[in-house]
C-alpha cells in the first residue's frame, strides 16, 4: 500500500454530494460571481504577456524535468537545505507526516502554533492531528480563519471561504471570534479584515512556532518560497523562533532561475494579478533574521503512485493556482465541497483518485465530475491536459471492472444482439414505436420522458429520455420518395 491518505478521500459519490450542494441557491450565486470575476481578471493580465505560451511550455517542461530527475533533485535540495542550517524529515503518508510535525512542535513545548495557509497540511489533516495532541493550530489567512471559525472546510484552493458572503462572515465573526466587539462589527469587508487583524496580531507577536507549506522548493539552493497577499505569511515566516515547513515532494524546481518562469505563471493564473503583494524566500536559517530553527518535512502521500502512471503523472505539475476551478462549468455550479477532497475542481478530479488509488472512499466517481469541455486545459499555466487524464482514469476504472456483471453491461449485450441483425433491429424499433405511442400522446410535442421506471430510472435521474421517432428514417425516406419526388427520378 503506497496510496495517499488524509483529507483527499471523497466520503460521498460525487453525484450525491453534488445534488446536495446544487440545492443551495445562495452558494451557486456566490460561486458564479466569484469564478467569473477571477476568470475575467486572469484573462486580462494573461493577455498582457506576449510570451505567455512560451512561459507555459517552459513551465510544463521544467516540471516534467523535475518528475524525471526527482530523486537526484530531492537529494540535492536536502543537502543544500541542511548546509544552510535546516533539518530535513521525510514522510511516506499523512499519518507519518502528522506524527513528525506533532513531535517537532512538542519538542518546542508550545501548545499553540500559527499557520500560513497550506494545501499540504490540509491534505494530511494536520490541524486535526495537532488538536488530538493538545496543540491549537491557528489559521492566519483571512479565508482560512473564516472557515476554521465556522468549523467548516475550504471550498476553493485559492479563496477557501468563497461560499460565504459578507453577511454570513460577519455573523461567524460575531459569534465565534474571541474578543470581537459585536456591537460595532459591520459586514463591510474592511471592517471584517480589521477584526481579523486585531484578533491575529497578538498571536503573531507572541507565537514561538509557525507551520507553513511552500509553493516552491529550489533544489540548487535549498530555498523555499511562499507566495501570498495579506502579510500573514511573512508574519509566520519571520517572527517565530521555529518554522516547520511541510512540502510535497513535487514542489521542486531544479534551479533558482526557474522562478523567473513560475513567479510569472502563478500570480497571473491564480488571482489575476501581475504579481501577488508578497513573496518570501528563505534558505535555511539566517542569524539574526527570522526563525533560528527550520524543519522541512518532505511528504510523499500518494505522489509516487501518481508518478507511476505515464498519462496521469502530469497532474504532479500542478502549482495549485486554481485557474481550472474558475473556468469549470461543473465547479461553478456545485462548488468545492461536492468533490469531498481538499483538492476540488478539475485538478482535484484527477489528483485525488490518483493519489489515494481509485477505490478509496468515493474517489472513483471524481473523474466523472466533468463535461470534458477542455476549458481547464486552456487555463492551466503548466499545460496539464486534464480532459485527457479524466478520460484515461475513466478508462482505467472501466478496465478494472471488466468481467464483473453490471446492469449496464447486460443491457448493452442485449442491445448488441438486437442490433447485429437487420430484421431483429427493425422489429425492435417497431415494437418500441408501438409501445411508446400512448406516451407520445401524453407528452405531446415535447416527445421526451422525464422519468422512466426502474432500472431505466438511473438514466433519467440526470437527463430526459427521448421517445422513439413516430416513423423511422427508412420509412420516411421511402414515403418521401413516392409522394413528393415520385416522378422526379430520371
Amino acid at each position: 500500500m503506497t496510496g495517499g491518505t488524509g483529507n483527499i478521500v471523497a466520503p460521498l459519490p460525487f453525484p450525491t454530494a453534488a445534488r446536495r450542494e446544487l440545492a443551495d441557491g445562495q452558494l451557486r450565486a456566490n460561486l458564479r460571481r466569484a469564478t467569473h470575476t477571477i476568470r475575467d481578471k486572469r484573462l486580462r493580465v494573461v493577455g498582457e504577456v506576449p510570451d505567455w505560451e512560451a512561459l507555459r511550455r517552459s513551465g510544463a517542461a521544467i516540471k516534467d524535468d523535475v518528475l524525471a530527475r526527482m530523486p537526484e533533485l530531492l537529494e540535492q535540495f536536502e543537502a543544500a537545505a541542511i548546509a544552510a542550517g535546516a533539518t530535513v524529515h521525510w514522510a511516506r503518508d499523512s499519518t507519518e507526516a502528522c506524527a513528525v510535525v506533532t513531535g517537532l512542535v512538542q519538542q518546542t513545548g508550545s501548545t499553540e502554533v500559527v499557520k500560513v495557509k497550506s494545501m499540504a497540511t490540509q491534505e494530511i489533516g494536520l490541524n486535526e492531528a495537532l488538536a488530538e495532541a493538545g496543540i491549537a493550530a491557528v489559521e492566519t489567512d483571512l479565508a482560512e480563519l473564516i472557515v476554521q471559525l465556522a468549523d467548516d472546510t475550504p471550498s476553493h484552493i485559492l479563496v477557501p471561504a468563497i461560499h460565504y458572503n459578507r453577511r454570513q462572515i460577519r455573523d461567524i465573526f460575531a459569534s465565534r471570534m474571541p474578543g470581537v466587539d459585536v456591537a460595532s462589527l459591520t459586514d463591510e469587508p474592511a471592517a471584517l479584515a480589521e477584526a481579523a487583524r486585531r484578533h491575529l496580531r497578538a498571536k503573531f507577536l507572541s507565537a514561538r512556532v509557525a507551520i507553513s507549506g511552500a509553493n516552491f522548493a529550489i533544489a540548487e539552493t535549498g530555498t523555499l518560497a511562499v507566495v501570498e497577499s495579506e502579510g500573514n505569511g511573512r508574519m509566520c515566516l519571520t517572527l517565530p523562533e521555529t518554522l516547520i515547513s511541510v512540502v510535497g515532494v513535487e514542489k521542486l524546481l531544479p534551479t533558482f532561475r526557474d522562478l523567473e518562469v513560475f513567479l510569472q505563471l502563478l500570480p497571473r493564473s491564480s488571482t489575476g494579478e501581475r504579481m501577488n503583494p508578497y513573496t518570501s524566500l528563505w534558505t535555511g536559517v539566517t542569524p539574526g533574521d527570522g526563525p533560528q530553527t527550520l524543519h522541512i518535512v518532505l511528504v510523499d502521500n500518494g505522489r509516487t503512485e501518481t508518478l507511476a502512471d505515464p498519462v496521469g503523472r502530469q497532474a504532479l505539475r500542478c502549482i495549485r493556482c486554481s485557474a481550472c476551478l474558475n473556468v469549470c462549468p461543473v465547479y461553478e455550479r456545485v462548488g468545492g465541497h461536492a468533490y469531498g477532497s481538499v483538492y476540488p475542481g478539475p485538478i482535484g478530479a484527477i489528483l485525488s483518485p490518483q493519489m489515494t488509488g481509485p477505490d478509496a472512499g468515493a474517489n472513483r466517481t471524481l473523474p466523472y465530475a466533468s463535461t470534458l469541455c477542455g476549458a481547464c486545459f486552456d487555463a492551466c499555466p503548466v499545460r496539464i491536459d486534464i480532459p485527457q487524464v479524466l478520460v484515461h482514469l475513466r478508462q482505467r476504472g472501466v478496465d478494472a471492472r471488466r468481467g464483473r456483471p453490471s446492469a449496464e453491461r447486460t443491457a448493452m449485450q442485449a442491445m448488441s444482439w438486437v442490433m447485429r441483425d437487420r430484421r431483429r433491429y427493425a422489429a425492435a424499433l417497431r415494437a418500441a414505436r408501438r409501445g411508446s405511442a400512448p406516451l407520445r400522446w401524453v407528452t405531446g410535442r415535447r416527445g421526451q420522458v422525464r422519468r422512466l421506471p426502474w432500472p431505466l430510472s438511473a438514466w433519467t435521474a440526470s437527463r430526459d429520455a427521448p421517445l422513439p421517432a413516430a416513423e423511422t428514417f427508412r420509412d420516411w425516406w421511402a414515403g418521401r420518395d413516392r409522394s413528393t419526388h415520385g416522378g422526379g427520378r430520371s
Partner: protein
Amino acid sequence: MTSASRTGGAAAGQGSARDEVLARIRAARPTEPVRVPRDYHTAPATGTPDAGQADRDRVELLIDRLVDYRATVRRCTPDGVTEALAELLGEVPTVVVPAGVPEGWLSAYPGGIRRDGDPDPLTVADLDAPGLAVLTGCAVAIAETGTLILDGGPDQGRRLLSLVPDHHLCVVRTDQVVGGLPEALARLADPTRPLTLVSGPSATSDIELDRVEGVHGPRRLEVLIVDG
C-alpha cells in the same frame, strides 16, 4: 531529534521513510530526459533602440504599476532626497531605519530616528509601536509587475523591519529598475539571502473578492524614486 531519526532524517538508515520514498520514486519516474525550452522573453521589448528612452520608459512603467497597486510614488533628483524624505515623513513621529541607510537621508527630518543596530536590535514590541514608519532601500525593482525586491542588504535590514510597522517607505534608484522578473532575479547578489518581494501594500480579497488594503503587512507603501 528523536522523531527525525525515527521517520528518516538525512542520515537515517535502512527502511527509513527517506529511503523508501526515494526508492518508490526511482521505480515510478519516467526515464526520458526532458529538454526545457527557454524561448520566453528574458528582457522585455521596450520598442526603441535608444537606451536613454528605454530607461525612462521603464521608470514610467514602474510608477504606473505601483500606482495601480495604490502605493504612493514620488520622484526626485539625487540632491533632493533629503528634502523629499522630510516631506514624505512630515507627520510621522518616529522612523525606523536599518543600519545601512545613509545618515544624510534623514538630516532634514525633524522626528525621532531609531536605528536597528547589531549591538541593540529593535524588538518586535518596539516595531509594533503606533505611528511608526520604516525607511528602507531595495535591491532591485521590477517595472512590469511593480515589484520591489528586498534582499536584506545593509540599507534594507532584517525582514521584520518592513513587516511590522504599518507604514513602509522605500527608496528606489532608477538604476535599480529592471524591466521584467528574469532580469531582476539575475541581478540579485546572492539568492540564498532572505528575500522579500513586495508588490503594493498588504491586501486581501477573501470577502466577496472585494480588495481590502492592509491586513497584516504595512497598510501604506510609499516609494521614492531617485533619478540616478
